[in-house]
């Protein structure tokens, strides 16, 4: 259940997802920009490490569906939305700062 990696690195309290709890994530990008690609890659990596088998990622390309920007009040690109579990979380950027992503996703309480 516990990730051995996390136990070693994290000094703060870990928030481990409940078993069977499913994470629904949505990543808004704009085309195949390097930033978009980096965000997707970073997200995949984090999810596979912390939420193995418990997540789904939907990628929304605003270049193809600009009208979808309104739904989640998307201003910044890339934006990651955690729809489930509630409450909704919004993380922006290319997700290169893993610590911040973990905090943003409530996978860790605070940055060390």
């Amino acid at each position, binding site marked *: 259940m516990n990730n051995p990696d996390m136990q070693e690195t994290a000094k703060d309290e870990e928030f481990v997802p409940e078993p069977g709890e499913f994470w629904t994530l949505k990543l808004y990008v704009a085309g195949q920009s390097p*930033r978009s690609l980096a965000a997707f890659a970073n997200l995949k990596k984090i999810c596979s490490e912390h939420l193995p088998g418990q997540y789904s990622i939907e990628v929304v390309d605003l270049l193809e569906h600009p009208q979808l920007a309104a739904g989640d009040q*998307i*201003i*910044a690109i890339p934006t990651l939305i955690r729809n489930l579990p509630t409450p909704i*979380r919004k*993380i922006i*950027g290319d997700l*290169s700062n893993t610590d911040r992503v973990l905090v943003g996703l409530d996978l860790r309480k605070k940055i060390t």
Partner: protein
Amino acid sequence: MSEVCFSETCGPDQLPKVRTGIQGLDEITQGGLPRGRPTLVAGGAGSGKTMLAMEFLARGAAEFGEPGVFLAFEESKEDLIQNFKSIGLDLEALVEEKKLVIDYLHIDQNEIHEAGDFDLEGLFFRLGLAVESVGAKRVVIDTIEILFSAFENHGIIRAELQRLFRWLKDRNLSAIVTGERGENTITRYGLEEYVADCVILLDTRIQNEVTTRRLRIVKYRGSTHGMDEYPFLIDSDGFSVLPITSATLEQIASDERISTGIPRLDTMLGGEGVFRGSSVLISGTAGMGKSTIAANFADAACRRGERVLYFAFEESQAQIVRNMRSIGLDLERWVRECRLAFHAARPTMCGLELHLVNIHKVVRAFKPQLVVIDPLSNLTTIGEQQQVRSMLTRLIDFLKSQGITAVFTDLTAAEFNLERTDVGVSSLMDTWLLLRNLEHNGERNRGLYVIKSRGMAHSNQIREFVITDSGIELVDVYTGPGGVLTGASRIAQETRDRAETILRRQAVEARQRVLDRKRRALEAQIALLNAEFEEAEDEAMRELQQEELLEEVQSSSTREQARRRKADGLGEG
């Protein structure tokens, strides 16, 4: 303002401009905001940024056929529609007619976690979609500075804003971007660095417990513009800016003269009264009859069949009508005939600007030929001298431009400083009547002077101003050897003068009678002497005749003797 021709100001050298349709703003910007470029509107909370921006869009959509997009960061669409309904803007209808898009972007800064590099492409998509959906020509972003508080990485925000303004320009969108006022800068986050073309600053000040709003064009690249601070108003008709002075002094000067309603006052003013469309100031201390003169002006205008607006800042309509009735002026009749309308309001009821705008509005609606403001000085209680002066300048200019004769009364506070009006407006006036208290012998009497009257020969004399049951009478003051006298003193002096005259006349008559008598005595003497002389002459004549007779008798008797004696040598015989 439709009467202003903008084509002249938009020469080939001038930037192309887009009219806002906001009253006064197009005048001071000489045609509107820069077309196809962003304009920054900065101001504190509640300074009217959103109002200005929304009116720019709504008027653009409704009046100039330019659809618009309102990108709101602060208020929801529903709130905006609700708020603008209260000032008579039906945004809902514009939205339904596809002339306006209101897009509300909600950013909850607690919800956002930054984790790496990002851009604001989402905003661009959103804006682009909205612009496309109605073919927008105008865009408002209200207020973009919220981005700075929502995102930590200000470097990115700045770069993205720069991109946004370029984006707007590339699409030839005339935009208003609003920004919160900063402490030492125009906006808190220095937006003015990005929007370099046109910056408008809105300011709300509270002076003497009255709020005044001001607008200033900080810069307008490539265009001339008014440099002053202009008061503006937000009321039930929306946003309106009041240009301090009309750009030029080109009011038409009428040669027509109109009566003041007081014949002798007309006489003092070159015999014909004041010029139509001129401004008349009646100043004086309390109870001098300023309102009475003003009411006479009004009455005379109504008699000519004109329309008169009477702004009363001191008394109610009923009070004025009653007071004037007591001196024989029936104003009620004109009110009934809709030639005279009163607008009574306490000066402290609202700020100066609101008063000015109210006056503008009522004047535009009623279209009078004469306006009375009674008294001007009460307005000074709610503003500072400079403000009042600027307001009056604008008011006078406005009235002149409409060819409306304006009559102002002004209460001067102190006796010793009569020839100075409190607000220093006399220089703006064409005709200045001063009612002065002439105190003498324990009496106060009213003296009327014409201090100035531009463009006419006017009397330099003081007239005593008497208010009687049948109206105003102007009486010549006594200007004999005893000085200038008025009232009872004048009457007494006149009586004294009359008595003296009678006495003098009597003395002359007495002397004349003595002379007469002397002449008659002399004549009698002459007659007597003549008679004596005639008598003496008669006597002498008689003696002479007797002598002659005697002589004749003697000579004839001698000749007889000689004939008888036949004396020789003595006769012919």
